[in-house]
């Protein structure tokens, strides 16, 4: 293994002041601990439901139903783990790049957000565990969960907005102290991510606060199902970009430091994030292509806008690879591909996210298929879709989050990522990748062969159709088991880094890349948030006004609450 890289054994800065403020540390650690506990519980639910649906285990422990476990798995991993980890990571980078510590007021706001999310998750979780909210993480009406499930979800959302306020306050304080200067890249991207998140969650907040809660308490008798689905999917697609953008932050800002390179450009990454704000929101209809109540023209318009959101990912692919190549060449690489060998493949903080990037190539291509209007008929609500988001969220994003954890925990606990922990991390990355290949590739195939998603084990009365799925189901069960082992190893490393790894003599570095000296300063217009938010709302109005007005002009009679589980 090359010693030239600031890898697991070199990540020590000789500057004691680089350490986090103790109070900020406690706040960030609380977010991460909450995230990792959700990850562990969600993985247990994931293993059990994977074994149930593939026919390997028929009766589940404690009489829990398949759909109850699936709800738990989706809520804990899709909504709770991601949100808490992301907000903890953003807080850490904001503190790091905007002056070293939150003000007392900012930190108090961050704690308020944390506790709102904690209380919300406990409420919603108790309802799921007591089988009063077996409605999956999409909670489509008229499936009627306990009102406390919806209130808990609302607290999680509103709590995350409060966390965003802490980030905005810190950013505002820095801008006031540094007039005219472009904000550090990490903070710019964090602000962009939270702006996207808040605009996106407005949709689900409207659904939960104005439709689901009054209806679930019985204050209003009926709910317009199509309207509620439209509000949900206004949020449901940008949700995936809320997961992806923090991974992009790591790729753009932190990895250049880990590979001893420079950030290739200071403007392109900012432009990329602006494009995500603009184009990830007015696209929810591509999740609703198969349903009534929305005109063809509007469905197609949102398909076009969905394709636009591929562009910032194409920009990212180029920029990240260019960063790698330039770093390799500056370390003396020769020839066209010599730079590949200069990359720190033996450093898990690099390897895990890069494997994630590779998975994003087929993952992204699958996403284009999903969004392709008629082609969606072949895959809609089949296991293909489950395979798709496990290949994107659960591989690209989660491997990146693993990579972040392997230095963020040491930076917070001032412990060392030892060579053994690094090697275990590499093993964990390999197991995770194999598990995901074994699970998500067969999911894509059986999806095409007609196996529906979110469905318990079934053979439809020994139908020949289900017989074709059998070998793929066995592979999925093996993949799911490997993934569970991967989570156990990850949590083992996390606990080790948190409590047991040797203490570092000096502060552990929080890797923040420097911008290439030749890169011109970013144009100030990129930080005119009011402009971008206004354009976003204009696009949302164009894409949604007519269809939503149509739903009000030609309303469905609505549905009373039903409990079918």
């Amino acid at each position, binding site marked *: 293994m090359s010693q030239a890289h600031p890898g697991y054994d070199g990540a020590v800065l000789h500057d004691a002041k680089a350490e986090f403020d103790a109070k900020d540390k406690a706040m960030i650690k609380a977010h991460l601990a909450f995230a990792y506990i959700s990850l562990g519980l969600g993985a247990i639910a994931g293993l059990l439901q994977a074994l149930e649906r593939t026919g390997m285990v028929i009766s589940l422990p404690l009489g829990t139903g398949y759909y109850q476990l699936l709800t738990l798995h989706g809520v804990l991993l899709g909504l709770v783990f991601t949100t808490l980890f992301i907000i903890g990571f953003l807080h850490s980078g904001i503190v790091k790049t905007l002056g070293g510590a939150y003000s007392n007021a900012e930190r108090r706001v961050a704690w308020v957000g944390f506790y709102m999310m904690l209380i919300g998750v406990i409420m919603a979780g108790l309802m799921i565990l007591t089988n009063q909210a077996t409605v999956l993480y999409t909670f489509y009406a008229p499936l009627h969960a306990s009102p406390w499930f919806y209130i808990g979800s609302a607290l999680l959302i509103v709590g995350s907005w409060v966390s965003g306020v802490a980030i905005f306050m810190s950013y505002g304080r820095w801008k006031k102290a540094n007039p005219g200067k472009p904000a550090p890249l990490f903070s710019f991207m964090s602000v962009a991510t939270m702006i996207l998140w808040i605009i996106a969650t407005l949709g689900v907040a409207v659904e939960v606060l104005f439709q689901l809660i009054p209806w679930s308490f019985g204050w209003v008798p009926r709910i317009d199902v199509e309207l509620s689905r439209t509000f949900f999917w206004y949020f449901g697609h940008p949700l995936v970009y809320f997961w992806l953008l923090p991974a992009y932050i790591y790729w753009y800002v932190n990895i250049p430091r880990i590979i001893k390179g420079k950030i290739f450009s200071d403007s392109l990454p900012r432009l990329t994030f602006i494009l995500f704000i603009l184009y990830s929101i007015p696209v929810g209809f591509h999740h609703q292509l198969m349903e009534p109540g929305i005109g063809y023209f509007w469905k197609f318009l949102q*398909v076009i806008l969905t394709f636009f959101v591929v562009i910032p990912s194409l920009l990212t692919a180029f920029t990240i690879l260019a960063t790698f190549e330039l770093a390799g060449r500056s370390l003396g690489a020769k020839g066209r591909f010599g730079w590949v060998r200069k990359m720190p493949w033996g450093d898990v903080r690099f390897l895990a996210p890069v494997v994630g990037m590779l998975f994003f190539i087929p993952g992204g291509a699958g996403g284009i298929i999903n969004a392709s209007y*008629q082609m969606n008929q072949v895959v*809609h609500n*089949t296991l293909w879709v489950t395979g798709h988001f496990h290949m994107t969220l659960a591989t690209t994003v989660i491997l990146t989050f693993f990579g972040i954890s392997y230095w963020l925990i040491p930076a917070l606990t001032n412990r060392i990522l030892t060579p053994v922990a690094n090697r275990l991390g590499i093993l964990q990355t390999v197991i995770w990748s194999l598990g995901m290949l074994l699970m998500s590739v067969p999911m894509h195939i059986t999806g095409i062969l007609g196996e529906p998603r979110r469905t318990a084990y079934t053979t439809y009365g020994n139908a020949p159709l289900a017989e074709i799925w059998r070998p793929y189901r066995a592979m999925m069960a093996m993949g799911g088991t490997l993934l569970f082992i991967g989570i156990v190893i990850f949590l083992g490393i996390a606990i080790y880094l948190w409590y047991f790894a040797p203490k570092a003599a000096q502060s552990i570095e929080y890797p923040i890349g420097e911008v290439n000296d030749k890169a011109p300063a970013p144009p100030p217009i*990129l930080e005119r948030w009011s402009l971008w938010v206004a354009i976003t709302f204009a696009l949302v109005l164009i894409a949604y006004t007519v269809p939503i007005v149509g739903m009000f002009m030609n309303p469905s009679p609505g549905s009373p609450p*039903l409990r*079918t589980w």
Partner: protein
Amino acid sequence: MKIDLPRYEKIWITFGIGTLAAFLIIIGVMAFTMDLHPPGDNRTIIPEAISITPPFDKPGLYPSGSRNYKAAIVAKTFTFLPTEMRIPAGSTVHFEVTSPDVVHGLMIPGTNVNMLVVPGRITQFTYTFKHKGNYYLICNEYCGSGHQLMASRLIVE
């Protein structure tokens, strides 16, 4: 706005945007000149009144010409009505589906029939079954504890 975009990146982005545009033009031409649209409809219906609203009061196949049928289907927890349908090969079936209770899906594996069924609304889609065989209508949206049992048969003879 001046952004430092190197030459190779310009080529890459032009190629990428060009590819996306080609995809969009192809699916757009298919949609708007060949009328290949996904399912939809704008009609509404009272979920509790399905059993007294034609044609859903009598779910089944209604011939509407030579090898042409309208299929009125009720998707309810946890079955499709009718539970079995028979048509000759080469028949075109115009599906009209609704739900008296929660959201369901109606998918026929091996075909492009894939519809989301929303209570209070009707979903329609037309498909021609060219090949003989036993087809299954299966629910592909979670609808409750018996969701995995929700299936019926379409026999093409």
